[in-house]
């Protein structure tokens, strides 16, 4: 019996460290899309004349984006958003669906909306040229970079 008491006491003792939560916020409403060449799978820079994201009462728009990485916001008031890409003389779109959940980190940090279950609902791109690599929209607080969600091959 005394061994059992000692064991339980040690369990209590070993888990008695109090740690105040750090404000490590990984929430992001941005979808990261990385662009690649479909031939050699190397990053590809493309000049987009504009990129729009459908939203509630407003539309996000980026003009003249020349990059191999895109960060496009999802509509925080909905569960689907349509991204429209205008490049060269073409216009393509990707409609994504997602779910959102509010998480309270700590009173000193606040409440944040986390997006997950990202999926492709519809697209005008060749479906085989889009790869969904991460269904959660997350930002690394250490380097402020978003995790890649989609890979798009041109």
């Amino acid at each position: 019996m005394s061994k059992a008491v000692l064991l339980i006491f040690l369990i209590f003792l070993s888990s008695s460290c109090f740690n105040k939560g750090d404000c490590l916020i990984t929430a992001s409403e941005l979808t990261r899309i990385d662009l690649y060449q479909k031939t050699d799978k190397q990053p590809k820079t493309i000049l987009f004349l504009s990129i729009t994201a459908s939203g509630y009462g407003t539309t996000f728009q980026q003009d003249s984006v020349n990059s191999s990485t895109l960060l496009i916001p999802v509509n925080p008031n909905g569960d689907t958003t349509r991204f429209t890409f205008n490049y060269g003389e073409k216009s393509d779109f990707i409609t994504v669906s997602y779910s959102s959940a509010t998480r309270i980190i700590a009173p000193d940090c606040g409440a944040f909306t986390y997006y997950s279950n990202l999926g492709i609902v519809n697209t005008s791109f060749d479906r085989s040229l889009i790869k969904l690599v991460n269904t959660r929209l997350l930002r690394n607080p250490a380097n402020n970079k978003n995790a890649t969600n989609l890979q798009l091959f041109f």
Partner: protein
Amino acid sequence: MLPTCNFFFSLLLALVTTVSAFAQDKEKPADTLKGKFLPTGIRLGTDAISIIKSRMGNNFSGWEANADVDFYRYYATMDYGNWSRHEVLTNGDYTNNGTYFRIGVDCNFLLKDPDRNMFFIGFRYGHSTFSETVNYTDSTSNFGVISKSISNAGLQGHWGELTTGLRVKIWPGFWMGYTARMKFVPGVKGAGALAPYDMPGYGLLSKAPYWGFNYQLFWRIPFRKAKGALRGK
């Protein structure tokens, strides 16, 4: 041939040993624990910390009632409480409200103490029914600041606890003491768009194990006189 002989010899030895063991059982004196497992009283109590926290602070309101019944060195325990919390967040506020109960068993290690003082170790199963709401502003880089109000209603939660503590007799019929709790494996059913944050009876769901501490006051109502020299009435 030799292995077969060994087998029969072993079987015979086992048979003889078993028969002699049964014979010894018949000669044992009467069980001295007979009747000791009948409860001798019920102790009713409350948690002083919950009452003080409710009076002193403005972000917690709650109470807790406790009861235990003795069965020899074991005590069947039950706690029932109410818990309401309001937290101011940097970008909003959070409130919850609910009731909880715990049931379990304590094992008393001061069995022969004449005043029914206790040093105990036990376990509990906890269950909570609660609702919660968060109102906050979500600052997005592209859609501006959005106000949100998200609620969870009718949540059902449960957890387990390892407990230890003391009960010390202060006056006849009155005990004081503490219970330290290590709460673990919390689970909540019925959550919607808000990840459950604070479960009444448990605490912050992001922390497991989580610690709890009660300072309790107990009054004992005796049913009958205990066998032996106990005088805790």
